[in-house]
């Protein structure tokens, strides 16, 4: 997927932002199956992984940032914005850092590391907001959930990328 013109780039970024926003808002309606704060599927991360793989880290960062801001406006609170931002930045940094080792069919592992960074980042913010270190008891639960949901979203991203590369979606 070559993006030559500025216009095309803007359109693709806008499209992916809109997609991730829809996924994010839909996912927010699903009640959590486990009584641990912070556990969720993280489906919007599929878009981040697709964007990093197909259009580059810079645009993926812009899409993620826009999605977090817009997502908090439409389906969040000021506090949830802080959590999303912390998780999003940690996840993005880890994805950028490890992308060159874990691209292609290793993307599921990149997704797991991103999800783990997201959850741990949120946990650090939670401990600041709560003024307590008790939240760190959730580390094993959150890491386990990051492994499961990260693998799932990572595989979703792999399948999506392969389809786009084959030109199924381009037309």
């Amino acid at each position, binding site marked *: 997927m070559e993006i030559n013109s500025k216009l095309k780039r803007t359109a693709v970024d806008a499209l992916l932002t809109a997609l991730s926003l829809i996924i994010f808002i839909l996912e927010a309606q699903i009640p959590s199956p486990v*009584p641990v*704060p912070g556990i969720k599927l993280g489906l919007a991360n599929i878009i981040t992984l697709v964007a990093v793989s197909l259009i580059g880290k810079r645009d993926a960062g812009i899409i993620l940032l826009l999605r977090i801001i817009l997502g908090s406006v439409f389906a969040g609170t000021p506090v949830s914005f802080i959590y999303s931002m912390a998780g999003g930045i940690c996840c993005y940094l880890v994805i950028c850092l490890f992308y060159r080792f874990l*691209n292609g069919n290793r993307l599921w592992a990149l997704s797991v590391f991103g999800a783990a960074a997201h959850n741990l980042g949120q946990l650090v913010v939670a401990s600041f907001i709560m003024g307590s270190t*008790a939240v760190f008891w959730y580390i094993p639960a959150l890491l386990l959930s990051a*492994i499961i949901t990260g693998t799932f979203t990572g595989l979703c991203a792999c399948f999506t990328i392969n389809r786009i590369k084959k030109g199924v979606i381009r037309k």
Partner: protein
Amino acid sequence: MQNNNAGASSRPSNKLLIIIISAAAVICTAVLLLFRFVPFGGNVAVISQNGKELYRIDLDKVSEAYTIDLGGNVVLVENGAVSMQSADCPDKLCVRQGKIKNGSHPIICLPNRVEIKIENDGEKDVTDAVVG
């Protein structure tokens, strides 16, 4: 596929990644089960809000169950156990965590910044436990 590309030697193989991540999953599960089922001891419920300790209750000395209203949250104190009875937050995760006792992991209500944990009652109880 991509794994035949140049620079493959510097990248971990998929098999290695599966082993590492599965091992991490097993360790996390083990630690979770440890937290859930191994009693760490402790009989004092400490209830805090906004990082400030509000109540310190010896659960062994509670004869009749009672509730504490913290504004948004209602804490149920019973003999040997403590739980969140109700909360005004939308997800109610703290209520669904059920009762805690014996120093298992804390109940935390993130939206209302309420925390309930079980602690040991200082050194006195440790000696008692050893003597008893």
